[in-house]
């Protein structure tokens, strides 16, 4: 009871906060389902549902009536607090303090029904959300999963409509789906219901037959199994290759930005995720990569005028070298001290680049322009749709290297160091060499993304390399899951891709980052896509099989 009240109060405060900072209003521009529900309302409902669920979960004893009562209560309180805001707002003009407390906000909150009716509607909506969440909590696990994922997909489709709509409309046959699913703003009603039913049906089917299919797959003889796996990979590669053509200019641009963050994230993942060295100055290596590329290739400065590919090896070497150089002074530092010191390095590099002293070489605040585009055999990586391939290749290379390293002596040394530095050392790991190697590898990856960034923009400016980039990358890794390669991709898509796609998000980017971090720490500290436990003991047979096969192939071939 007390718990439910507390949870309800927290939920109410959160909703008031979301309203007063203008998020609800900004989000209500976009409809999830056209003319039925906007993204702003969805946000409020999700908070109320979540609080109802929490109240249900924290009910002692868990008698179902009590569960429902508690979730009802917390929902009611959430609604009550928001009504309170509406009432206070209708009596006093809050705009002097909260600029977003405008009439349009109250209209939204009261469903355009005026204060009196609106307050009752709000209370009702809150209570209803609470009860629904309680029922959800009480329902069997399968049903919960199906509901959660299907509803999530509908909301997701609504949120990502700008991504999905142009994709569908580009292809003749898919255009019909497009018309059926989307209006100019939001899903159609039949589209939303159809999507929900489709996903739910698929999930139910998978829960019935999934294990059968999986065992069936495993019982296949190795040869067709491999063919199936290979064709899966080929389809994935094919999709990745045609993506920019399908997605068009704007979305390709979004993909390149996400890709750059994936590259950066994978590099920092080695330093932070594997080796456990919290490096907050990671942007330094990105800057060094960009500036080295600029200095070596730009005719504006007239030092070298190399091509992108000629410059690239030097850029990587420079990155690795600076990784070692900046790593050396912080070798003895751990944890917070390391974070602060590296944070300083990031700033030092930016300020050095800005300085008048280095202006003749690095261009000062004006930066360096006229950086040539990369090209291979006449194919120029000019616009986002071409740069995409450059970044894709970079990501694949870096993923490949990361995977190889992770399952090796070096990867294990990094992870042992992360877990317990002293014991790692007592197990024969040379801390100096191992740490420097982590810094150098991460810096090399970062310099590579810096080089791509420089040719992408054709110019570099000091202000592109501020501390926010480091922070963003750290967030990407934490939200995705420390030490997890798919986690980096998911994290970058969520934290970098979403705000690019949703104009509404952009303004609240930092707020969303903060909320996401707090939520992750509380709900899923291991990250969105945590590193899977690496199975080795029983891989023996598979390994042997694969090996005998490859040796056979060698002989026959």
């Amino acid at each position, binding site marked *: 009871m007390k718990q439910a009240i507390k949870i309800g109060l927290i939920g109410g405060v959160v909703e008031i906060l979301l309203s007063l900072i203008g998020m609800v209003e900004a989000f209500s521009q976009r409809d999830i389902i056209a003319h039925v529900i906007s993204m702003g309302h969805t946000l409020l409902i999700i908070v109320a549902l979540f609080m109802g669920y929490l109240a249900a979960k924290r009910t002692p004893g868990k008698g179902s009536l009590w569960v429902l009562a508690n979730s009802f209560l917390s929902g009611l309180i959430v609604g009550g607090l928001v009504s309170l805001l509406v009432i206070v707002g209708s009596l006093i003009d809050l705009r002097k303090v909260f600029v977003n407390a405008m009439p349009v906000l109250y209209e939204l909150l009261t469903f355009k029904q005026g204060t009196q009716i609106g307050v009752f509607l709000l209370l009702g909506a809150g209570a209803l959300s609470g009860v629904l969440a309680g029922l959800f909590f009480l329902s069997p696990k399968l049903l919960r999963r199906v509901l959660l994922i299907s509803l999530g997909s509908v909301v997701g489709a609504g949120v990502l409509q700008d991504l999905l709509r142009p994709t569908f409309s580009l292809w003749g046959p898919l255009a019909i789906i497009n018309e059926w699913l989307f209006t100019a703003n939001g899903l159609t009603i039949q589209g939303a219901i159809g999507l929900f039913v489709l996903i739910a049906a698929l999930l139910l089917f998978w829960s019935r037959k999934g294990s059968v299919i999986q065992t069936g797959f495993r019982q296949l003889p190795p040869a067709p199994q491999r063919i199936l796996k290979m064709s899966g990979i080929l389809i994935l590669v094919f999709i990745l290759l045609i993506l920019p053509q399908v997605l068009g200019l704007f979305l390709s641009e979004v993909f390149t930005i996400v890709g750059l963050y994936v590259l950066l994230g994978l590099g920092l993942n080695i330093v932070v995720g594997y080796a456990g060295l919290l490096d907050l100055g990671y942007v330094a290596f990105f800057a060094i990569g960009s500036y080295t590329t600029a200095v070596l290739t730009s005719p504006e400065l007239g030092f070298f005028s190399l091509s992108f590919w000629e410059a690239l090896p030097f850029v990587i070497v420079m990155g690795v070298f600076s990784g070692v150089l900046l790593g050396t002074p912080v070798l003895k530092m751990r944890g917070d001290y390391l974070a602060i010191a590296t944070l300083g390095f990031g700033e030092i590099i930016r300020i050095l680049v800005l300085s008048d002293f280095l202006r003749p070489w690095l261009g000062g605040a004006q930066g360096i322009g006229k950086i040539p585009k990369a090209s291979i055999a006449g194919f120029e990586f000019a616009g986002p749709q071409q740069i995409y391939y450059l970044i894709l290749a970079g990501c694949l290379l870096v993923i490949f290297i990361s995977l*190889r390293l992770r399952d090796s*002596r070096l990867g294990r040394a990094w992870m042992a160091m992360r877990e317990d530095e002293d014991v790692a*050392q*007592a197990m024969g790991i040379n801390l100096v060499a191992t740490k420097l190697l982590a810094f150098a590898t991460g810096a090399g990856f970062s310099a590579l993304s810096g080089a791509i960034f420089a040719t992408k923009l054709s110019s570099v400016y000091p202000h592109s390399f501020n501390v926010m980039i480091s922070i963003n990358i750290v967030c990407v890794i934490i939200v995705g899951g420390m030490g997890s390669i798919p986690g980096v991709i998911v994290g970058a898509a969520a934290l970098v891709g979403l705000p690019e796609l949703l104009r509404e998000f952009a303004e609240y980017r930092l707020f969303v980052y903060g909320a996401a971090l707090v939520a992750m720490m509380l709900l899923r500290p291991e990250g969105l896509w945590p590193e899977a436990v690496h199975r080795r003991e029983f891989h023996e047979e598979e390994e042997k099989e694969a090996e005998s096969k490859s040796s056979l192939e060698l002989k026959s071939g």
Partner: protein
Amino acid sequence: MALLFTKKVTKRFGGLVAVGDLDIDIREKSIHSIIGPNGAGKTTFFNCITGFYKPEEGEILFNDHSLVGLLPDRIVRLGISRTYQNIRLFPNLTAMENILVGLHGHLRAGFFGIVMSTPATRKEEKEAAEEARRLLKFVNLAGKGDFLAKNLPYGDQRRLEIARALASRPKLLLLDEPTAGMNPRETQDMMDFIQHLRDELGITILLIEHQMRVVMGISETVTVLDYGEKIAEGTPTEIQGNPKVIEAYLGRGSTAEVSQVS
């Protein structure tokens, strides 16, 4: 012949002399126990041998190599490996990976060898995995290799820690209270296991122990520390009768342990 030989080793923490003027000879292929009341400096002595602490004075010789001033990673390569009083596994690595980390010093693969996955690297990794599996089996953990270390039960963690120490192929193994927190049955198993290590693998064992039953049961030599200083040394029977030892334990009010055996 002495495998490990210390002369007048002294380690101070501020004014506190944790280990004072300690001379110890550890014969090759022996099981040597160190006992003493709480805070006597036993663990500190281990930390001096393994390079965690640098003693202010004295000399530690292992196979005629001086260990003073060497870093822990050098010392383990010379052939000294250890376990910890409060288990210090790598909690988020699997049991298998914990052992593989122990093998680190015996693997040679470098950055490019790994990225290119050269035949040498692959061969080395395969052999390492085999050795790790063998060690798992050796400490009775076969089938648990894919568990995260932190998810193993206490007794398994103790044995995994020993397996990890063994992975570095030590000549001298330091065990810091290996039977702490074990019931009599587990304790007996651990004693058999330690004896087995010495008899089968020929590893010299230096052991810190609180349970007198274990000390008296398996060790050939016992050294007694009190306030960082050696107050007695000899065979278990000699130690049991030594009035100084009884006094040291009596003074701290833990007679039960000594008299328990006699």
